[in-house]
């Protein structure tokens, strides 16, 4: 059961937030052919893991570089830190070659988090695409741990193809045990796929939630979120009940290198999770 206090955002374990703490790889698991989840334990055995769903860490692979990766694990687990990432660049490619026992530098957790009390007594619609399901998994754990506080919870998930669907086992378990309505759609089907084919947008249009009493959480490619926001707007969900996880180039993650600026804020400290009314003036504006 998550015991985080809303106002107390844990900001990492060390005095100087530019110095990585050393962790060891505990397990590495392939989710799809280019996405993997790895779990880390701190070298300092006494250190307790503490983060809020939606936050991210800066992960450093010796001699290669440092990248921001969303934490994808269960916030109630204080001994292991999980991340899920695609292997696309130099650092993540090096990461997917790590083995249990290898070291990794960790700075964080940084950033804002998914709302944790907004949803009480409301419907929830969670709209995710591709790797965007990973930063949402911690909030799903949190919600399932106190399922009775919410009304309908709908998860809409778009993936490239059936073999790219993440966390299949967990989705099934939540669907069965915790009354989580899960609708998955793929851009292109493989033979044998008997589910939705197409984009997430029409699913948003038809999902069974009450727009006047719903909180929406969105995470995925920006263009997917743009279309999903339009559908939510069409259905009458107000801007201050929509939350989006945004991404920009990150270097320091501390709010002063300037790289992650997104309009009037910094994604590393004002985000990555934004309430939509905070960014409506710049969202979707090209090249902001």
């Amino acid at each position, binding site marked *: 059961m998550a015991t985080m206090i809303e106002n107390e955002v844990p900001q990492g374990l060390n005095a100087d937030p530019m110095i990585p703490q050393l962790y060891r790889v505990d397990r590495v698991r392939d989710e799809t052919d280019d996405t993997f989840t790895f779990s880390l334990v701190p070298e300092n055995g006494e250190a307790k893991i503490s983060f809020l769903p939606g936050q991210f860490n800066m992960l450093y692979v010796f001699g290669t570089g440092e990248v921001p990766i969303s934490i994808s694990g269960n916030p109630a687990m204080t001994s292991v830190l999980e991340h899920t990432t695609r292997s696309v660049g130099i650092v993540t490619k090096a990461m997917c070659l790590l083995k249990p026992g290898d070291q990794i530098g960790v700075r964080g957790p940084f950033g804002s988090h998914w709302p944790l009390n907004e949803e009480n007594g409301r419907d929830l619609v969670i709209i995710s695409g591709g790797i965007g399901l990973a930063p949402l998994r911690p909030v799903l754990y949190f919600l399932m741990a106190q399922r009775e506080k919410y009304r309908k919870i709908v998860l809409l998930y778009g993936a490239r193809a059936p073999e790219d669907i993440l966390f299949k086992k967990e989705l099934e378990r939540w669907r069965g045990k915790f009354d989580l309505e899960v609708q998955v759609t793929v851009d292109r089907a493989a033979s044998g796929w008997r589910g939705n084919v197409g984009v997430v947008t029409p699913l948003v249009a038809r999902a069974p939630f009450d727009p006047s009493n719903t909180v929406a959480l969105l995470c995925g490619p920006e263009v997917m979120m743009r279309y999903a926001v339009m559908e939510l707007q069409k259905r009458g969900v107000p801007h201050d009940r929509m939350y989006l996880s945004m991404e*920009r180039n990150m270097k320091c993650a501390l709010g002063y290198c300037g790289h992650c600026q997104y309009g009037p804020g910094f994604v590393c400290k004002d985000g990555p999770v934004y309430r939509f009314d905070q960014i409506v003036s710049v969202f979707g*504006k090209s090249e902001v």
Partner: protein
Amino acid sequence: MTPKAPRFNNCLVLSPQQLDQLLQVLTKRDYEVLGPTIREGAVVYDHVSSTKDLPVGWTDEQAGGKYRLKRREDDALFGFVVGAHSWKKFVFPPAMRLWQAHRTNGLFQIVPETRKATKFAFIGVRACELHALSIQDKVFLKGPYVDSIYKLHRENIFIVAVDCVQPGGTCFCASMNTGPKAATGFDLALTEVLHEGRHHFIVRIGTKAGADLISQVPHEEAAAGDVEFAENLVAEAAKHMGRSLDVNGIKEMLYRNIEHVRWDQVADRCLSCSNCTMVCPTCFCSTVEDLTDLSGQQAERWRKWDSCFTTDFSYIHGSSVRSTPRSKYRQWMMHKLAYWIDQFGTSGCVGCGRCITWCPVGIDITEEARVMREGETLASAAG
């Protein structure tokens, strides 16, 4: 004999020789004394051991894309405004190693840098630069994380500020409410007066440290008439700024014009050379570089100055969010005049004019803002 420490609300007067003695006291007290000097045809901030090292008898001529030094007819010590340098390079060094990592037998350890603080004394800090320092203080010291490097360098700086009595060709501190008179953030503030054969400095005391320092050199109380004369010089300077910027509702105005055609027009001229960001006293963007040696066993992390105009600044997922000069210039200007207000509560611009002077094509931030604002006025007048 130690003179009694003067009271705060007294104005004092120093001769140029007495000012020189002040610099000697600072040096004796192990301050690294930095001030304006001339090198390669420009005013740069560098080590100053006496008033002879200052640009005595020089002034500057500044315009869009133009900077020249010119001889004055007098021997003013501070008869110019600002050059390409700003004080940020001392508190926010252009390149700093953050830590080293060593790998042995497959395992690595991180060794943080140990740093020693240098005691700086800044001589000749302009009012706009005082504001720039306090703006950067907000960025580096008042956020969720304190930048320890900035903090280390920023503490214990002794500041001798200088009012501007002759504004520069691209200055607009009066519009930004940041000058020409030094208001706060200094230990001592000087107004240089050359009038009817006399040459002296009216001194305002800002802090106890300032009072203590000046008590170490011979000084006198300033005559009321001299103080008033000095104040008038500064007040007059405020009326003769080279540029002006209407800051009323500028944030909202820029947000409304985020897709204005003017951005395309300025983009035709902007070279994305990043000069403006290098010379701007408030620009704070940096990058983090991870380096390894050839053996692959030693790694280092460095922080270096960066600019939002560089190609990869906004690189994510295979391409840059801002890849065109249009979007980069817009980001820089909107950050400086609009987003900064949302981020830090003040404007990011202090009206020093450096970006106008040092832009190779003379792009003028005040002109860009004016054109957009006038465009709105015309549109609404047309009904």
